């Protein structure tokens, strides 16, 4: 990144629910086209951080800048329009609507003025995830967990984001499925999409991302290139509580 301004810059972020502070003074950056991971144990505040970035919970302090503009307290629908898409924890597929309708909802912000572009992106998303093409007219609820995750990612792509935030990609998925999805994310990233990935399965996150943040107790514990962190004993200790 160097002198270049980051795509996303979060500084001193705080998120609280009532008097409970889930995130305390957290700072992180994502450069344009970068693939960044956030790992850490459950309850470390990862999801709260992502929700604040995507605008589904208001931060109680700090600042979020996107493409150089202050977007700290914007509601989620405005952030989508500016280029932040989120694949939420638990996927949140609209189960009573078809796969096609789910995808069209992903394009909600542009469908009014860019029908051709949406059709084109739809085609691209379906060729990334051929399984979805087979199930285009099925209800979202009838998909398997892996297919739902694919749909959630495809749906996120349809807003043509600059930054894709993915919260807990592997949650409840079998390793085989996870290993099908990751290469697609890597491809998307190579095509210029910045990805911020929250992942509990540290090995996956460390393997696919360029840079990783390790969170604990609502703030950043460690930060560095993923390859280096992968050999850092502190990461493993944070997980399994091994003593040196």
């Amino acid at each position, binding site marked *: 990144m160097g002198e270049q301004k980051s795509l996303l810059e979060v500084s001193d972020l705080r998120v609280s629910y009532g008097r409970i502070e889930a995130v305390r003074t957290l700072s992180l950056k994502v450069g344009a086209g970068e693939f960044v991971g956030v790992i850490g144990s459950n309850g470390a505040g990862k999801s709260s951080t992502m929700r604040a970035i*995507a*605008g*589904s919970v208001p931060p109680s302090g700090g600042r979020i800048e996107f493409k150089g503009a202050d977007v700290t307290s914007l*509601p*989620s*629908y405005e952030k*989508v*329009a500016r280029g932040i*898409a*989120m694949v*939420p924890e638990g996927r*949140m597929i*609209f*189960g*009573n*609507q078809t796969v096609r*309708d789910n995808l*069209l*909802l*992903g394009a*909600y*912000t542009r*469908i*009014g003025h860019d029908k051709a572009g949406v059709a084109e992106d739809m085609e691209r998303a379906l060729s990334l995830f051929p399984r979805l093409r087979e199930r285009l007219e099925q209800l979202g609820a009838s998909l398997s967990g892996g297919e739902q995750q694919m749909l959630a990612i495809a*749906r996120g792509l349809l*807003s043509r984001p600059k930054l894709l935030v993915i919260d807990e990609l592997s949650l409840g998925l079998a390793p085989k499925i996870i290993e099908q999805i990751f290469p697609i994310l890597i491809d998307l990233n190579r095509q210029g999409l910045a990805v911020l990935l929250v992942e509990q399965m540290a090995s996956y996150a460390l393997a696919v991302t360029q840079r990783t943040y390790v969170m604990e107790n609502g703030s950043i514990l460690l930060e560095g290139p993923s390859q280096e962190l992968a050999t850092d004993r502190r990461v493993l200790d944070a997980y399994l509580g091994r003593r040196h």
Partner: protein
Amino acid sequence: MEQILQFVLSGLSQGGIYALVAIGYYMMWAATKAANFTHGDIFMLGAVSTVILAGLGIPLPLAMPLAILLSAAAGALIERVAVRPFNQGPSSVGWMLTTIAIGLMMESAFTATYGPLGKPLYSPLAQSPIRISGTGIYPQELLIPVVAIAIMLALEIFYQRTIVGRAMLAVAANRIAAGLMGINVNRISMIAYAMAAGIGALAGILLAPVAEASPAMGALIGLKAFVIAIVAGMSSARGVVFVALAYGVLEKMIEGFISTGARNAIGFGVMILLLLIFPNGIFGKREVVKV
């Protein structure tokens, strides 16, 4: 046999009115998990304002859409002022009280200015009844359930084929996820209230030629429609319309075979019983308790 046909037809007519009002409750509930409690007064507003506008010399084909637009605006306003600020959290009931307050004010303001008595609205379909074995029924009355079903089908197309309709379903299913799609959840809620109000007003306009438009006409119908929507389970327009039509027929049967006086007592009794058997409504889905 013909007597039963008569009950069924007039029951469907009555049920069509319930259906149109209950659809509104369903739409509002789906979007916000709240509703304009006195939606029946919007139904009244549609009928009464059409009569008033017609009285001002505005031709009916213009007065009716104007009244519907006016009611839709009132619905949107109620969402913004009386529901949204009082619907924070799943167990809040503030919206119930604020909308009851507004309903009381509307009803009494019209009683004071328009007068408590009903006034008829002209309709070419309410001039000469069709004879069915001794008793008659106006074509207007037969029109009502047809409109109700047509509106239901139109709504289904709206939900499945338009982006605003899809967004409304998305908001109903998960407000947070809808926001993440770029949907302005509050605006969609407001549109849902406006549409509900427009449909409710239409019901009032349809009923006015056969039952007169009065300020008190909406209160009981509104409550019945709410009960109907709840018994149906607030889960789909189709379910709501089905229960509403059935309830209308049930009422006419009670009137015909027992007595007019027993109508509400037995009708509501049946509804309370149904809710006892189906605590989540007949077509409702059981919500999994999250611990």
